[in-house]
């Protein structure tokens, strides 16, 4: 595996700037991770207050995106980074866009939890949604870890999990359809659940994107839209 280090510039201030922006991305990652967790908890526990907090956090995530974008613009203008430095800045610009969207999806979970908080007639399929949510949370955490450690191997194995999550989402959707057919008065609620599952599935997609950026960052190879297994064999 390639050694990856973004320190040691003759201009020490450049190290500081890159480190600074990288830490901001990690903080933003931590924030959206907690948003996904809280959104899911709010949904599971019918906790409107927690759901509302996720909406508030989304504003912070948006602000992170603006700040980091500005930092990256400044680095590009002032330092004209090349090679791995350039890839780091590009990776960060792309990563925060995905993180911001993960925040948006988490906010949707929160919003639906606020809407559903006062429902009394609770259907039984929450368990499956939690199961899906747990897998998505793990995938998000692992992709953020891969970014933090610039770990290509972890990025590959995390990205590979997206397929299983897609399948789980499809299974859950089928479950909802059959439930809607059996209990037409639950259609509205089931549709909301479908939206939530959709959001979780999208979060997994965004996590997968982050893993792909990490691989690009370290290896310099763009593996988007390529066969993951082939690329893995080629690179590792």
């Amino acid at each position, binding site marked *: 595996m390639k050694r990856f280090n973004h320190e*040691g*510039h*003759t201009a020490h201030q*450049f190290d500081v700037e890159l480190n600074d922006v990288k830490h901001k991305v990690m903080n933003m990652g931590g924030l959206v991770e907690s948003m996904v967790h809280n959104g899911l908890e709010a949904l599971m526990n019918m906790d409107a207050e927690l759901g509302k907090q996720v909406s508030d956090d989304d504003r912070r995530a948006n602000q992170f995106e603006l700040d980091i974008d500005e930092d990256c613009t400044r680095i590009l203008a002032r330092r004209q980074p*090349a*090679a*791995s430095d*350039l*890839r780091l800045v590009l990776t960060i610009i792309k990563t925060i866009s995905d993180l911001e969207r993960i925040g948006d999806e988490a906010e949707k979970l929160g919003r639906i939890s606020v809407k559903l908080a006062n429902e009394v007639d609770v259907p039984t399929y929450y368990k499956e949604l939690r199961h899906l949510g747990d897998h998505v949370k793990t995938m998000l955490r692992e992709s953020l870890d891969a970014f933090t450690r610039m770990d290509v191997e972890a990025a590959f194995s995390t990205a590979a999990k997206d397929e299983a999550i897609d399948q789980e989402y499809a299974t859950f959707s089928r479950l909802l359809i059959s439930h809607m057919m059996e209990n037409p008065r639950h259609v509205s609620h089931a549709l909301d659940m479908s939206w939530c599952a959709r959001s979780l599935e999208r979060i997994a997609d965004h996590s997968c994107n982050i893993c792909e950026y990490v691989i690009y960052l370290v290896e310099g*190879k763009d593996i988007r839209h390529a066969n993951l297994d082939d690329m893995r064999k080629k690179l590792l």
Partner: protein
Amino acid sequence: MNDSSTEADTEKLVSMNIDQDIPHEQTVEEIVASLGDTVGQTRVDNPKMSCTDVNVFYADKQAIFGVDLDIADNEVISMIGPSGCGKSTLLRCLNRMNDTIPICKVTGDLTLDGENIYGKNTDPVLLRARVGMVFQKPNPFPKSIYENVAYGPRLHGLSRNKADLDDIVVTSLKKAGIYNEVKDRLDQPGTGLSGGQQQRLCIARTIACSPEVILMDEPCSALDPIATAKIEELIDELRENYSIAIVTHSMQQAARVSQRTAYFHLGKLVEVGGTDDIFTNPKHELTENYITGRFG
């Protein structure tokens, strides 16, 4: 502690130091050997000039170590690397400018269109007409603008009459993108122009001899950004008709103007490749360190 014991201690320390392995400082040759083979494709399908196993010595000191490199037709190749890495030395070998340095010895094969440029039958003056050079500092002759450009063609007998010569001067000045700025004062001294104009005049002077290859040794380092942009624009246009090798300390310039980039370190060609690849994903660690500004 008395004096004698201090002395004894000192002696002990000294002897210990002598016994210890003094860290061996690597010689340039050892470092070069540790760099390994050049990374990337040194050869191209349509070479204009070729270097094969080129070594250059200044007296006992070796400045270039076994360089293999092709310069393709109609391409701009940039040579980058820290000071003293041999990039200018190699450039100067390409039109035998090093002949003027008595202690300089060049070994290996250097060819232009497959012909050995260091062959017995090669006339360096004619070679330099085919392989022109532009230097770091603009160095127009202390003559009129017209004479600066006309000097080469007249020397090489490229014109039959005055009208021919006029034509060459105007065409060369136009190609160098300076004609409009000087057309009304061709009889004025070339040294009276601004730095950027002088450099373009020097390029016009080089073009006037109808070279096939143009070597540029940091052609923009003495120029302001606007003059630099004009020269870069010119390099881009000249590529259609000439092969260009450019030595530059500005990485951005190398990235902007060249199609291939060669990175030198301590006289060794470390890596060569497409400029796009070198500046986004270099293969050799030293190249990476240099272009990202990590050189200690």
